[in-house]
């Protein structure tokens, strides 16, 4: 069973999450229309994997920059302006740009993959107003805990508490 509490203030929803966590009831998740600073604070999540993936992307970018510049220079070594075939300073520019490019692309793709996007299904407990001016706290719990959850949500200041079947 899924219980959805909707709040019009982030701090209230964060309070609810904290209380639920303290009470160790059910599986808690939430929705937010704005960057959820307070809610994240109380959720205590692991660091996002996006960080490592962006770093990997950046390193691949630098390496591919080196591979492209040095590789193509050796593929057919043409002299220009008396400069060495492997001219490091200009190659660094290419490496840098490719680092940013692949780093940026990997940031977006790793976000999409990790966030399971594009998503075509509605998440359990989602209400359209969570997309504009309301915060939702969703608790997946068993029937016996229902009243406790509802009361915690109400006490925390939920404007409305809805019950959804699983």
């Amino acid at each position, binding site marked *: 069973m899924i219980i959805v509490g909707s709040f019009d203030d982030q701090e209230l929803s964060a309070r609810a999450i904290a209380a639920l966590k303290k009470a160790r009831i059910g599986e808690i998740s939430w929705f937010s229309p704005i960057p959820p600073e307070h809610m994240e604070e109380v959720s205590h999540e692991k660091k996002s994997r996006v960080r490592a993936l962006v770093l990997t992307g950046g390193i691949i970018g630098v390496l591919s920059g080196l591979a492209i510049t040095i590789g193509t220079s050796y593929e057919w070594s043409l002299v220009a302006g008396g400069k060495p075939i492997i001219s490091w300073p200009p190659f660094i520019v290419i490496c840098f740009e490719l680092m940013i490019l692949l780093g940026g692309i990997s940031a977006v793709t790793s976000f999409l993959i990790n966030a399971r996007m*594009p998503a075509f299904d509605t998440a359990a407990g989602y209400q359209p107003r969570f997309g504009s001016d309301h915060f939702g706290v969703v608790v997946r719990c068993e029937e016996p805990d229902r009243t406790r959850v509802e009361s915690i949500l109400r006490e925390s200041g939920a404007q409305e508490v809805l019950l959804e079947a699983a």
Partner: protein
Amino acid sequence: MNRIFLPLALVWLIIGATVIAFSQRPWLPRMDVVQPIPFSHRVHAGLNKIPCQYCHEYARRSENAGVPPIERCVGCHGSGILGGIKPVTRPWTDHTQPSFEIRWNRVYVLPDFVKFTHRPHINAGIACQHCHGDVQNMDRVVPVKEINMGFCVDCHTKRHASLDCVSCHH
């Protein structure tokens, strides 16, 4: 997910194919060249073992290999070397028509900005077949190798010939 990525992949495929299609040049050797007379290289160079440069005499001296003058054809066809004149060769054994022309169609055409010359290649001992394929086995000459820059460069690299761009492009 597939609803988005499949069309995207398709678009990329189309773009890629277009790029590859357009990176081909219109002067690639043509497979469909039909000559005005049914001349057979197999009969001449293969069966009768006439050396290439007997007819393409300028190859060792000039840019162009040259097509044989009609006089050269008549040399054999109009004289006693061949038992008789076959019907197909009659037009140019008729000496009353000195302006008779055979308008051969070119099989190998290089763009104007490639200054290929036969002279150094023949003198370096490259067999004609290296580029033109086994012409002696062909009735109608069709290109066997794709004569593009990579083809030239591969061989030049292998044989330590000049790799200066301006050697061919000037």
